[in-house]
């Protein structure tokens, strides 16, 4: 209870009288004044609502009302925020300028490369990126809606006698516009980084934008029909085409396919086809979706809205792991039921075996890992072999995270880990076994890329290439372990003042770079040309810490216990220092 409510909540009781307070002579008790009885409230007639003729509701008036509520409750305007956060704004502008500069430089460097591998990458990587963007658009649209409503809107608005379409159509247009902008930026970026000409960058950006917008419209249209299989099928088809494009990059770079000329000749037509098809879908499917917005079930609208709210909460704390947890939980709920499998072994072996069973049960967790095998080859083909450990390590990090589901659950709350009769280090090591084996397979598969397969020139010996691939694998695996096990921001501790960013809980900024820091630490020595043993030693230290061998809580507890025993011994021996009170002024 707050102090205020403590003060005002309960009626103040008169203090008990002490004998000293009592009067010496009895005094006649005051005669209580008669309290007049309150007059009964007049009985109001019961209003029977079904006899009332409802007036037509204006949806636009409702929208205006909602907007006024939101604006009326805002305590700060956007301009105030920008003024307060000018450091953040400046930092964003500076980082943005640096990124643009890096992209322009990389585009210049890569476009100068004329080897067969570079040509095939320049031709095919935008295809793969485009397909990736489109598949991602479909996936996100399916998971969220794409049309959503918050729980409050679902309860207060969607059940009212209104035409939902008039409330929802603006959202659909916004979502499609957002998809177009984001996809165009990404498509253009990949085209620039793979060395396309600036006109090519614009063409790929337009294709990605219109394609993503069109597919969002299709997903919305399917949402109105309460179906998901069409979007799922499209997502897989587009993903397979993207994978084929990536594999072709490797095949051409390795010399398994003659050259990329046949693809290059089709380049212009392909992006044009995607642009036109996207535009047609955007208009056609978008129009159908707008016309049928009323038919979207309230539960489906609100489901997407709750997911958005959960993701916003996780994003507010910059906790990407929590965002992934929400998606995994949602996926599991959608699946609902599995055919139970029998366990095997006892002790830690049972944990490892069950982790392997989970992977067999959900093999789609391996897709990203399989896709990431192509990355070192593609990076090498682009002539950026020196950067391969860093880039491939970062990609491997994201690919290994889905395999660390067991470790994630065992480290996010202590309850389940406490149920197992093992130390934290034992549990984490057991949970690392299956992902480590998968990473080892990845290392074997990418070693030829470090040998220079497909680039036409090899600057590493067989042993060095194996070690470089191994260090990259270690970096990705340990980065993923760090990403999964890092503690979220602690809101119980005092906030820290972060200049123009305002107050933040400890650990929030660290959350942004968790995992990336380990990959950088392990792979940068190789990038700088130092001995790879430095990388191996750093990886060893990271492993030691990440597996929980150095539990800071236990160390602090041991230190406290030692201090307590020392104080006790001093007291017993009469050697404890006499505390001198501070001088009184």
């Amino acid at each position, binding site marked *: 209870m707050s102090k205020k409510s403590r003060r005002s909540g309960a009626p103040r009781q008169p203090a008990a009288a002490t004998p000293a307070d009592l009067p010496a002579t009895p005094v006649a008790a005051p005669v209580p004044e008669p309290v007049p009885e309150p007059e009964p409230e007049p009985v109001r007639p019961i209003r029977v609502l079904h006899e009332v003729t409802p007036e037509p509701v204006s949806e636009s008036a409702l929208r205006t009302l909602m907007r006024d509520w939101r604006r009326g409750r805002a305590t700060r305007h956007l301009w105030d925020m920008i003024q307060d956060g000018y450091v953040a704004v400046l930092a964003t502008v500076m980082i943005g300028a640096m990124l643009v500069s890096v992209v322009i430089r990389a585009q210049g460097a890569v476009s100068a490369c004329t080897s067969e591998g570079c040509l095939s990458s320049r031709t095919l990587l935008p295809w793969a990126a485009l397909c990736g963007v489109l598949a991602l658009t479909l996936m996100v649209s399916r998971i969220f809606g794409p049309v959503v409503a918050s729980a409050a809107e679902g309860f207060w608005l969607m059940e009212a006698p209104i035409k939902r379409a008039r409330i929802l159509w603006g959202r659909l247009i916004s979502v499609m516009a957002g998809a177009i902008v984001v996809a165009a930026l990404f498509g253009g970026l990949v085209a620039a980084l793979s060395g396309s000409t600036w006109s090519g960058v614009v063409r790929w950006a337009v294709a990605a934008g219109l394609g993503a917008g069109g597919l969002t419209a299709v997903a919305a249209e399917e949402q109105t029909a309460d179906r998901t299989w069409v979007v799922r099928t499209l997502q897989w088809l587009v993903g397979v085409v993207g994978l084929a494009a990536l594999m072709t990059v490797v095949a051409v770079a390795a010399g398994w396919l003659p050259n990329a000329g046949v693809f290059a000749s089709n380049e212009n037509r392909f992006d044009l086809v995607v642009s036109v098809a996207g535009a047609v879908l955007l208009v056609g499917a978008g129009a159908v979706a707008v016309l049928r917005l009323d038919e979207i079930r309230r539960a489906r609208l609100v489901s997407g809205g709750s997911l958005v709210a959960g993701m916003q909460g996780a994003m507010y704390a910059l906790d990407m792991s929590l965002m992934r947890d929400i998606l995994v939980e949602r996926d599991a709920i959608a699946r609902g039921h599995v055919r139970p499998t029998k366990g095997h072994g006892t002790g830690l072996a049972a944990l490892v075996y069950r982790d392997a069973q989970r992977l067999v049960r959900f093999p789609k967790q391996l897709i990203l890992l399989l896709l990431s095998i192509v990355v070192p080859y593609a990076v090498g083909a682009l002539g950026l072999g020196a950067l391969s450990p860093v880039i491939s390590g970062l990609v491997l990090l994201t690919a290994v995270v889905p395999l660390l589901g067991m470790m994630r659950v065992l480290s996010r709350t202590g309850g389940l880990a406490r149920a197992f009769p*093992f130390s934290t280090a034992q549990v984490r090591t057991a949970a690392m076994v299956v992902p480590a084996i998968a990473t080892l397979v990845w290392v074997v598969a990418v070693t030829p890329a470090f040998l220079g397969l497909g680039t036409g020139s090899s600057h590493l010996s067989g042993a060095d290439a194996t070690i470089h691939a191994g260090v990259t694998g270690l970096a990705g695996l340990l980065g993923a372990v760090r990403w999964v096990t890092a503690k979220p921001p602690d809101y119980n501790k005092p906030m820290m003042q972060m200049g123009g960013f305002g107050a933040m809980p400890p650990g929030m900024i660290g959350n942004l770079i968790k995992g990336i820091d380990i990959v950088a630490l392990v792979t940068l020595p190789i990038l700088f040309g130092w001995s790879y043993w430095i990388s191996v030693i750093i990886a060893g230290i990271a492993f030691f810490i990440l597996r929980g061998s150095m539990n800071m809580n236990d160390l602090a507890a041991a230190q406290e216990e030692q201090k307590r025993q020392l104080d006790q011994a001093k007291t017993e021996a009469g050697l404890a220092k006499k505390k001198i009170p501070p001088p009184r002024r």
Partner: protein
Amino acid sequence: MAKQRTPVLKVSKLSKAYGSHAIVTDFSLEVWAGDAVALTGRNGAGKSTILRCLVGADKADGGTIEVCGNKLRESDPAIRRDLATVIDDLDFFPDLSVVEHLDLLARAHGLPDAEEAVDDVLHEVQLVAQSGQLPGTLSSGQRRRLALATAFVRPRKLLILDEPEQRLDVEGVEWLAKRLKAEREAGLAIVMASHEPTLVDAVATKTIRVGA
């Protein structure tokens, strides 16, 4: 029953505060094999805080806690082997079914007849029909039954439960009372916080009113 020389749980002068607000001050307790201690008291009195300190989920500000003679360290395998807990921080693997959770725990604890033990517990908590379900799809009552099952499917010397009757139906509370009484009579030590008088009366050998 003849008492052992070492108590299963020994708490001396436990104290815990959140900021400047003291929740628990100088709380001491000894629990021997066959004892069942119930913590009762109003909401916010500090029952759950005491239990969270006892299992190592929260760090006490002062005092000592020993489980079977070992100083409490949450990640100590010996402590984890002896201590079964059902408090509010229990989590489940989203992609393992009900029966697989229990099987994994039984095997991890090295039970020689894991499958039999799992079957028995599944029947007891009435989750046979849900054995293939993933935890996210269980109702809140079923999740509570699964949480209790995770404590019953494994060997233990001390059982710590925070309001175990929560979300259970009337039959469920009756079953739980019988089960905990049987556990106590078999020599298990129990510490639980509860607001359910029938459960406390049936199970507890000692009741401590926290915050009184």
